[in-house]
């Protein structure tokens, strides 16, 4: 046995991608493709049942507009889920930021719209920071912490809002126009959501920081041993989720015009549902914000398509439930197949 040269000259790749690896990467992409396909099928089915679903200017606009706000929240939720945590307080953060948005316009007449955006995003980020700090420093499961802040933030919201509410007439016309306006047949809210999605999707895939989220979620203890800055990453994840919920709050106000103390109540389950449907594993380390975003679109589009397909209103929740369960069962089946192949690959190596 001779010692190899300390620094071998660069060599041509010698280790081929195994067939299994290739197939796995294909499956990973297929997961997102699968939901996209489901989405397309739903849209086509609804359009066949009623062409207006797609081929009227309102139909087209609503198809894009309705899910845009949830997509933002789902992106934040996906980041947190990927680190093997969960943020149940997003609905409450959204509600608080939405009300803050309204108050800013009412209390500071003439405030620039951009300033309101910044304020709500920072505010949401701060609320997220509280979650993150409690999770990261106190080492308490995120589920418990954010369940607590779900109550607390909503309580603060009700306390602050009381029976007051923000009405569309309190808000500047320019701002409300954001909620319904379009650029080249694409609603402004959708453009904002897509820009956020592309940026965060890129970061999660291509930067060191992004990959660390996956590492932490894949095995938190190993990440600690490895010397990753776990605390900082967790803070960033929760701040992002909070800030995105804050941004969603502003857009909520722009779209719906009316904000009372219950704005965004129950959104946490939609956000988690969207991410899970989109292939983000609740056990961390797996999935992408793209999947979560498509999951969110699918969830809300199905909601809108059901009545058109003749399924009464009342059964919508049941269908959503079946959908969530179907998605996670599908993921599970894919994962089991992947594992079997990996082991088989080791055998014939």
């Amino acid at each position, binding site marked *: 046995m001779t010692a190899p040269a300390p620094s071998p000259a660069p060599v041509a790749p010698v280790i081929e991608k195994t067939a299994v690896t290739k197939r796995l990467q294909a499956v990973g992409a297929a997961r997102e493709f699968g939901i996209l396909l489901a989405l397309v099928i739903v849209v086509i089915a609804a359009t066949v049942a009623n062409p207006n679903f797609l081929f009227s200017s309102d139909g087209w606009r609503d198809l894009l507009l309705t899910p845009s706000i949830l997509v933002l929240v789902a992106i934040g939720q996906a980041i947190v889920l990927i680190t093997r945590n*969960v943020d149940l307080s997003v609905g409450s953060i959204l509600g608080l930021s939405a009300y803050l948005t309204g108050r800013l316009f009412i209390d500071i007449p003439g405030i620039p719209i951009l300033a309101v955006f910044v304020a709500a995003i920072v505010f949401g980020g701060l609320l997220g920071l509280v979650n993150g700090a*409690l999770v990261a*420093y*106190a*080492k*308490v*499961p995120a*589920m*418990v*912490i954010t*369940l*607590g*802040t*779900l*109550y*607390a*933030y*909503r*309580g*603060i*919201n*009700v*306390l602050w809002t009381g029976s007051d509410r923000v009405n569309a007439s309190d808000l500047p016309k320019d701002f409300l126009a954001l909620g319904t306006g379009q650029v080249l047949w694409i609603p402004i809210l959708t453009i904002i959501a897509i820009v956020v999605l592309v940026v965060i999707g890129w970061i999660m895939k291509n930067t060191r920081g992004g990959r660390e989220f996956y590492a932490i979620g894949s095995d938190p203890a190993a990440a600690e041993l490895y010397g990753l800055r776990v605390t900082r990453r967790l803070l960033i994840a929760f701040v992002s989720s909070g800030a995105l919920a804050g941004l969603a709050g502003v857009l909520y106000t722009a779209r719906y015009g009316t904000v009372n*103390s219950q704005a965004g109540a129950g959104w946490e*389950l939609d956000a*988690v*549902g969207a991410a*899970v449907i989109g292939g983000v*594993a*609740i*056990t961390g380390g797996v999935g992408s914000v793209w999947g979560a975003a498509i999951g969110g679109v699918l969830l809300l589009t199905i909601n809108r398509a059901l009545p058109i397909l003749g399924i*009464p209103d*009342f*059964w*919508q*929740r*049941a*269908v*959503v*439930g*079946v*959908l*969530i*369960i179907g998605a*996670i*069962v599908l993921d*599970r089946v894919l994962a*089991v197949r992947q594992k079997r192949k990996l082991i088989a690959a080791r055998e014939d190596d």
Partner: protein
Amino acid sequence: MTTATASTATPVRTYRDYDRPLWQRLLLTREMAIVGLLVIVAVVASVSVRGFGQPITLTYLILDVTPILLIALPMTLIMITGEIDLSVASVVGLSSVLIGVLTQAGAPFELAIVVALVAGAIAGAVNGFLVTVVGLPSLAVTIGTLALYRGLAVGLLGTTAVTDFPEFWTDLAKMKLGGSNVPAVLLLFLVLLVVFVVLLHFTPFGRGIYAIGLSKTAARFSGVHVERTKLVLFVLSGTIAALAGVYYTLRFGSARGDNATGLELQVIAAVVLGGVSVFGGRGAIHGVIAGVLLIGILASALRLANVTSDVINIITGVLLVASVVSNSFLAWLRTKRRAPGGTARAKASAAG
């Protein structure tokens, strides 16, 4: 640690059972902290809140917390195995609706109860099947069934609420124990309490539950039937949630699809407050009972003091967070007191 070097040479070791004295083990626990807090809150409230001292307070308190107490029992066991069941409130709604639909269709009420309980057991079994056989995380599964079961409930009954139930049964749900102020449902709860305490703390099955929560793999290698245990617990959870649904229907005399919406979060908040770890493996029933009562008494006292529901929510949330954070904080204080590296560094730099 003493220097027992050569193991063959030393006499056989002796072992103490515990490294802490009995009183410490009994009193210095998370559970007793909650019990203590409960006592303090109850005393302060009776002294300072007008109207809290009346016997009727107890009646209303028990009527209010009974569904939570009932559901918290199996939830405790499930959470100790490291799983969670978010679908319980939807099962309450589904069971309520089934009773309504059947009564409306003219079925005897007893039959309706049985059907509701069986449906609850099936709902629990579906959760259990997806978690144990298919191998999915329970958080995701029960978020799905939370929507599904609620959807079935709302779908079945549509716009209507069924309100016509036999008086015998509705009275039973609100009956007081022989002239006292204590509602008779308390008996139902106490029976289940005994069953669950024995099951969790005094049976091999219970030992298995803790082992599963701390290490699923090690439990499986030790002959614990991990899957079957979890399945049994989910079925129990579904059944008891359905029982709570029966009570809910009778107490309010109304079967509605949206009954008990959001109750799951209250149950989980109480269970966690009572010292059960969401990671599994830790927790005890007395802590959970104290947790439920603490939230119940706080809400009752605050409402009497004309504090609005939002403040009550804030307090519940803060209490929940504080109770879990305090653990870590105390642990951190303990390490801080012993001042690690710090002293060493000071000495080293003095030495040059």
